[in-house]
């Protein structure tokens, strides 16, 4: 819409000019509006000054000189490239003869530990979750499903990582852990180190744990692997830059909060499939993040 200068006040013209200025500078106006803007600019000193100032800003911005880092950043960069590495043969299949092998920044130690953990976690957790989905439903039917009783049973050692029939005080009893990491049977939050609320154990999970064939319940499996990964993550935190670590810690805290909230909700409503599913997702999110950190 074009406004003629004779039909509106000068102030209104200026307001209209300013309103269309952004589009004018981007050449987004039609021909008549463009012409009106050009005409007004030539008639109005204030608007002409505004345009001139903006054109100066635009011109200066496009010619800003590069800024020099206050220190040499190469050392820090090189340090992050410089871990002992192993070549991955499959990367070079089909490569032309004589092509130098590009090294991957995966250390032998990290590769071995992370690969073992990923396989163990994926297989065990998937199996347990799938089994719980079946057994949990069955057990809640067959046990009479008194939530209070189930939660009370969930406080027993069997539900927090010790195989059925083995007292946690029996230090001579062999631990049922696939990875011999000292805190692997611990039940603490990775980010906070605080104990997990035991009364938030799921009914279905406990029922599974009571089955001799299932020495591990899902929560314990999660916590075991999270605890194992924690050692790797803690070491990686010592190697990553502080900004990255801050972000990762914050994310873990957020996930931990989601886990705690889900556990609390599940304690109130142990048979809630929605809450149980939400807790699983939160635990999986935590594992997923920790795996990524381990492989960074």
């Amino acid at each position, binding site marked *: 819409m074009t406004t003629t200068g004779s039909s509106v006040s000068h102030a209104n013209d200026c307001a209209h000019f300013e309103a269309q200025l952004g589009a004018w500078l981007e050449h987004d106006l039609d021909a008549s509006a463009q012409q009106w803007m050009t005409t007004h600019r030539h008639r109005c000193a204030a608007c002409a000054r505004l345009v001139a100032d903006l054109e100066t800003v635009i011109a200066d911005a496009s010619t800003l000189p*590069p800024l020099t880092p206050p220190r040499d950043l190469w050392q820090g960069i090189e340090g992050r490239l410089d871990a002992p590495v192993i070549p991955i043969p499959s990367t070079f299949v089909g490569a032309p003869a004589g092509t130098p092998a590009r090294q991957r920044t995966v250390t032998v130690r990290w590769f071995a530990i992370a690969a073992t953990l990923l396989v163990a976690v994926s297989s065990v957790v998937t199996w347990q979750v799938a089994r719980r989905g079946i057994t949990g439903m069955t057990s809640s039917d067959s046990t009479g499903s008194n939530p209070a009783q189930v939660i009370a049973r969930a406080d027993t050692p069997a539900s927090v990582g010790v195989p059925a029939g083995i007292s946690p005080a029996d230090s001579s009893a062999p631990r049922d852990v696939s990875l011999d990491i000292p805190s692997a049977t611990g039940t603490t939050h990775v980010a906070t180190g605080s104990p997990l609320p035991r009364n938030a154990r799921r009914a279905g999970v406990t029922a599974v744990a009571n089955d001799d064939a299932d020495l591990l319940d899902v929560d314990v499996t999660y916590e075991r692997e999270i605890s194992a990964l924690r050692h790797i993550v803690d070491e990686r935190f010592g190697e990553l830059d502080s900004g990255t670590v801050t972000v990762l810690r914050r994310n873990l805290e957020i996930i931990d909060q989601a886990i705690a909230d889900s556990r609390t909700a599940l304690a109130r409503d142990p048979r809630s499939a929605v809450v149980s599913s939400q807790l699983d997702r939160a635990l999986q999110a935590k594992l997923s993040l920790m795996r990524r950190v381990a492989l960074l």
Partner: protein
Amino acid sequence: MSAAATGDRQAFERVYRAHAERVFSVCVRMLGDRVLAEEVTQDVFVRVWQKLPGFRGEAAFSTWLHRVAVNVILSRRKNLGIQHGRHAEEDTLEVTPSRPDSVSERLDLEEAIAGLPAGARRIFVLHDVEGFTHEEIGEQLGITTGGSKAQLHRARLLLRTALTR
């Protein structure tokens, strides 16, 4: 470049030396935080090292590098949820321009850019400093071209106000 892409670290260091200033500049201006910009500059080159084998040479290396840098910066900003660089003004003022012949006006503009709200600053730097189109900015930031244009105009007006105060 090809040597760096095949894992030659000395060659990659030469790549770093040749492009560090430009990457650092865009980091400082988009983040409004000099210390953070140093970290992100390092992140950018680590990322470039990882992605170099996939660089096909379809675009100029400097263009490709610049896009990687912007992606890393945007990712970092998103993660940190930076709303506004509180220390941006003094941090940016500490930075020494590599061509010291333009001093006061350049620093005024640098300071004014650092003082912009984060959203407006990001778009101003991408468009008016780095030369991206609104379509490219919209794609990178997940906004419409209209939104990009509106933010750009807002940024320019704010800069004018700051510079003519």
